[in-house]
């Protein structure tokens, strides 16, 4: 399929058409002084001057909190009423090429052996329209993890900004089908409309992913004092994991009374001190650096070796949001030595 073009005006029409046909259109909007992904019904709130939204769009497939089932106690015992998974067509507009790679990573966790349909059913209906970055900030490090604003991994349609719209390159079958379904919004690229130049964030020299992987794979490095030295400042909040597009940990919890209520699947963070606390009081990750070490291992050892997928996409959200400015790239550098 050849490149198509969508003007800003047509984008507005696309948003209303998707909404009318029962789908969700998720795009970057300004909310409480920051850019976030949110459902939109029209183009008015959509912004284009942003580096990355504060949140990751993983929440369209993996919501922060969801009801798995409702239960009711009665004379007959217990009745369980499973909640149907709402799988609406969901268009994510304005995703950055770095984080577009993330759903594939989440997919690998939620489908190895057991298939978690609460995730897959939604993920199947997500169409990712990425927009290549023309700006980056100090925290962006996609090029350090072998991605770039040119990457198309995970994008269904890759969009590139022009003066008045976007040039659209369909990447996947899903993307091609999307452009076909909504063909009225797409046109041939008008003369004079050119892709704006993509930014090329500087690669962090000291980071060597191969060496990093090798270091992490060795059990003797697990007790390296560097871990504590470099990460003891971590305050143990969940801001990084909740902004991260590949963090997948969750909790299963009941809410309600002894007579009726619901079981929920909620995001959880390996950075919390109670995350791995045993009933006996024993905690394998009893200090903060051990919890941070787990998160880091997850990104650069577990995801790549176990799931053969990208653990870190270099979006830099965890650095921007960290209240103690713990910079993951500094640790990547230290562990590459």
């Amino acid at each position, binding site marked *: 399929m050849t490149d198509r073009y969508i003007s800003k005006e047509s984008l507005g029409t696309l948003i209303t058409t998707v909404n009318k046909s029962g789908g969700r259109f998720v795009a970057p909007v300004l909310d409480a002084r920051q850019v976030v992904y949110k459902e939109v019904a029209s183009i008015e709130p959509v912004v284009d001057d942003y580096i990355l939204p504060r949140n990751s769009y993983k929440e369209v497939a993996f919501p922060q909190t969801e009801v*798995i*089932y409702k*239960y009711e*106690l009665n004379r007959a*015992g*217990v009745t*369980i009423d*499973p909640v149907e*998974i709402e799988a609406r067509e969901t268009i994510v507009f304005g995703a950055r090429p770095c984080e577009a790679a993330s759903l594939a990573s989440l997919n690998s*966790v*939620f489908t*190895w*052996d*057991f*298939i*978690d*349909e*609460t995730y897959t059913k939604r993920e199947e209906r997500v169409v990712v329209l990425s927009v290549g970055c023309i700006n980056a900030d100090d925290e962006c490090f996609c090029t350090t993890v072998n991605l770039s604003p040119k990457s198309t991994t995970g994008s269904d349609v890759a969009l590139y900004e022009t003066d008045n719209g976007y040039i659209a390159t369909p990447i996947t079958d899903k993307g091609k089908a999307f452009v076909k379904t909504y063909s009225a919004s797409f046109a041939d690229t008008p003369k004079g409309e050119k892709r704006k130049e993509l930014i090329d964030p500087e690669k962090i020299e000291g980071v060597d992913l191969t060496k990093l992987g090798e270091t992490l794979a060795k*059990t003797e490095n*697990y*007790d390296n004092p560097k871990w504590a030295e470099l990460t003891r400042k971590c305050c143990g909040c969940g801001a990084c994991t909740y902004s991260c597009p590949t963090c*997948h*940990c*969750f*909790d*299963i*919890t*009941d809410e*309600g*009374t*002894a*007579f009726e*209520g619901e*079981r929920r*699947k909620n995001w*959880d963070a*390996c950075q919390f001190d109670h*995350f*791995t*606390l*045993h*009933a*006996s009081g*024993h905690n*394998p*990750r009893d200090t903060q650096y*051990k919890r941070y070490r*787990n998160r880091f*291992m*997850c990104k650069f*050892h*577990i995801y790549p*070796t*176990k799931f053969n997928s990208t653990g870190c996409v270099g979006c830099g959200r965890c650095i921007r949001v960290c209240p103690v400015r713990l910079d993951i790239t500094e640790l990547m550098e230290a562990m590459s030595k």
Partner: protein
Amino acid sequence: MSNLYIPHLVTIEDIYEETSDIRSFKLVFKDKELRETFEFKTGQFGLYSAFGLGESTFCLASSPTRKGYIQCTFRKTGRVTNGLGELSIGDTMGFRGPYGNHFPIEEWKGKNILFIAGGIALPPVRSVIWNILDRHEDFGNVTIVYGAKTVADLVYKEELRHWDERPDIKLIQTVDPGGETDDWQGKVGFVPTVLEESKVKAENTIAVVCGPPIMIKFCLGALGKLGFSDDAVFTTLENKMKCGVGKCGRCNVGDIYICKEGPVYTATQIKTMFADF
């Protein structure tokens, strides 16, 4: 089933008060078909629901050779287990499973088996014990070393008496120093010490160890001294779990997910793992 996290409903058919805070349940699936078709292997675990309170992970403490029901044993420590502690015979609870790997007992045919357990860790071992005893003709000698803090903390007291009386089993019971009563017939001492003193022969013998992390650590040392090779020593790791199916990200030890690739490991495997349990 479309949703992984929806439990089967089970009825509590019988309750055994093992100690002041440890309980066992005999559970029967409400679904008649499942009652007949449900199968598991020794060493596997499940997630048990107290509705309104949540889910907890315990092993399947019964033997797969005993069909039609499952058993579990738990200590009342948290929200869910205290909730389960208040249920009565006939009440409904939830069960998901079986999950995880199992003890490779088919490979142990013809061998002697040494069981070592501490406190509340007897239940996973008990499943193997009954599995072996129910087919004792396939295996060699059975030795059980079981210890608890005090006499009152020993679980499955009825079965301990039964095993003690059986001529085909050697049962060594012990309690920690200070935990003995006036009429205590067993030994006094920590499990690893008692194990070492037992002089169990390592030749053609498989050891199954379950207990708190510190006990496992010292038992591995004691078994080494007795001449056991690490490949002949099996244990189960119990990390905190919420999903049981390799998703929730809690139980991993490095890149090993205890709930999927475990909980059963040989000492050889344990020794090459990241120190995260």
